[in-house]
């Protein structure tokens, strides 16, 4: 909750883009989910200011908009913590040692790594999702370490 209340800067140009794209959507309640997707695509999450705009524009009560927004696990009501890599822990990945990979990386302490539910790439287990959402199949710990190290320290 604290994160949610944190004041966050929204870039003007993103807001302008959002409003102009939103105005192309039909003003009907059925476009609530497409509007959330639009906001998340532009801002990377669905900020309160966008939620208010959506409620106004689609003429849906704010409370109902929030009730719907928060029911979807893939919609983010707070900006993502950046640079995280995810290790899939679906059944097939688990069998190929996903938990072990998570543990080894967590032990190294320098990486931002978390586990994540099935990514539907079970044939290529174990699977990881990189910090920009890209999927990688048949990952090995050594490869992962160099990949993550490169992406998490490369930019600095």
């Amino acid at each position: 909750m604290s994160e949610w209340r944190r004041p966050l800067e929204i870039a003007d140009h993103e807001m302008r883009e959002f409003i102009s794209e939103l105005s192309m959507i039909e003003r009907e309640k059925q476009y609530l989910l497409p509007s959330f997707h639009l906001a998340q695509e532009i801002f990377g999450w669905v900020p309160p200011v966008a939620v208010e705009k959506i409620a106004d524009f689609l003429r849906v009560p704010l409370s109902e908009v929030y009730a719907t927004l928060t029911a979807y696990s893939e919609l983010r009501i707070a900006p993502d913590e950046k640079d995280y890599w995810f290790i899939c822990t679906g059944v097939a990945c688990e069998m190929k040692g996903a938990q072990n990979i998570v543990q080894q990386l967590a032990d190294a302490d320098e990486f931002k790594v978390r586990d994540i539910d099935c990514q539907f790439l079970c044939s290529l287990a174990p699977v990881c999702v990189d910090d920009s959402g890209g999927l990688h199949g048949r990952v090995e710990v050594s490869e992962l370490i160099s990949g993550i190290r490169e992406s998490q320290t490369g930019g600095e």
Partner: protein
Amino acid sequence: MSPRHVILETLQGGYHGGAESRLMIHEGTCGTATNVRQEVERVGLIEVCEENDVEVVYGSCDGNCWAAPSATLRHENDASEFVEKRFSRLDELIRVEDFGVLLNGMQRGQGFVDGKSGLLDRLGRLDGSLEHAVWLGAYSNVDQILRGSKSDALQRIEDWKLTGRGGAHFPTALKWRLASGNEGPRYLVVNAEEGEPGVFKDRHLLEGDPHRLLEGILICCFVVGIEKVFIYVNGQARAAFNSLSKAVEQAKAAGLLGPEFLPNGLRVDIELRQGAGGYVCGEESVILNSIEGARPVPRFKPPFATDEGLWGRPTVINNAETLAAVTTLWQDEPPPTKLVSLSGNVARPGVYEVPADGTLSWAGLLLQAGGEPGSTPAILLGGPSGVFVIPERYDEKIKMSEVGAGGLVALAPDSSIRSVVQALTKYNLRESCGECTPCREGTLRLDALLSVDTVDFDKVTSLVEVMSEASLCMLGGMAGRPVLSAIEDFPTIWKGKA
């Protein structure tokens, strides 16, 4: 000649079969995740293709996910005869000299044949253009159907006993008949949410052969009399969504969705909707709420969707694979098949087509995928709402009613069945939408009951009974299935340290 034939002939005529020899690089989700673009460069395939006049095209995964990164060399003649050779797991450098020998060998008809049929026919063979899809048979069945009557089409579907491929196995013809008996306007909702862990066959179908789904949609719209279609695609399946969007645009531009192609002034409008997570979103009434802009929670049934679905109108809700399967029923010997996603302890995990008539055994499927029945302690069917198949049953034939949505995971000798079941229970707990108490509280308590050292079977069984009887939808209704199945088949693993 009817305008419909003009459309199809124009489409076909616009395609000249491409180059005689083509290298199809299987990109798609599987290829991207294995860096296929870099790999084909690295092993020298692009270079040898250029030197041998082989056209290079990019397509989708062909269902042989295990082979990724992979590419298929296909040599075709005017009579549409072809030979193929797949380069699996591009881990060896490919030399120009060898390639030449290979091409010559193929021309003598010694190609690689993988025995694909039916639903997967065009998967991984299309270059993404509508013309190529039509060239390889897309829309030819709907063309044939439109020449006949609606009742003939329904009869055919009934005769071949096509049932819903989403897991519930409701007879498709009956569903269509129920909806068409109600006054319009009617809707069609295509369930391509596929959010069950371990299932990835719909994604492959939509990524690789989206026109097959569109053809199935047109057949349904014609038979039931529907003008508005929503395709609800899993939010994470970006590649499938993009491929489908492109296909819808292509079909629109070619006039396939309009009255020139469809009889009686029928015009089909297809709208794509992207889901946003939640296993429960695969439940049909949840999809209806989601499309309407309401909270994604299940509805009470009855009324059933065929009576009161989207905005209270009669609605057919079909799984994407069901509609795709409809298109296979008009072949001479239609093989109604079910797609399964097989992963885990097999050498060749991927998408497999299993005959619906029960002619393949569990052991047969395992062997086909390079698994060893002798060292597979169980097959998990249907993920978080599934059951286990134990070795004693491997010789039994696979029944459609058992495979659910089609997610199969072969377990390894060192797999802990108890941890698998606990992980699935925790998954159901996380994914419960909280709308009804039996599921919201039940999944929580089930997890707690399984977390103690020695599990109390009686308590588990009575809790599962309440959940399956009283939950609003199948998430809660079936959350206890893997637990009961594991208790029955592996009674000894529940005593001692959790």
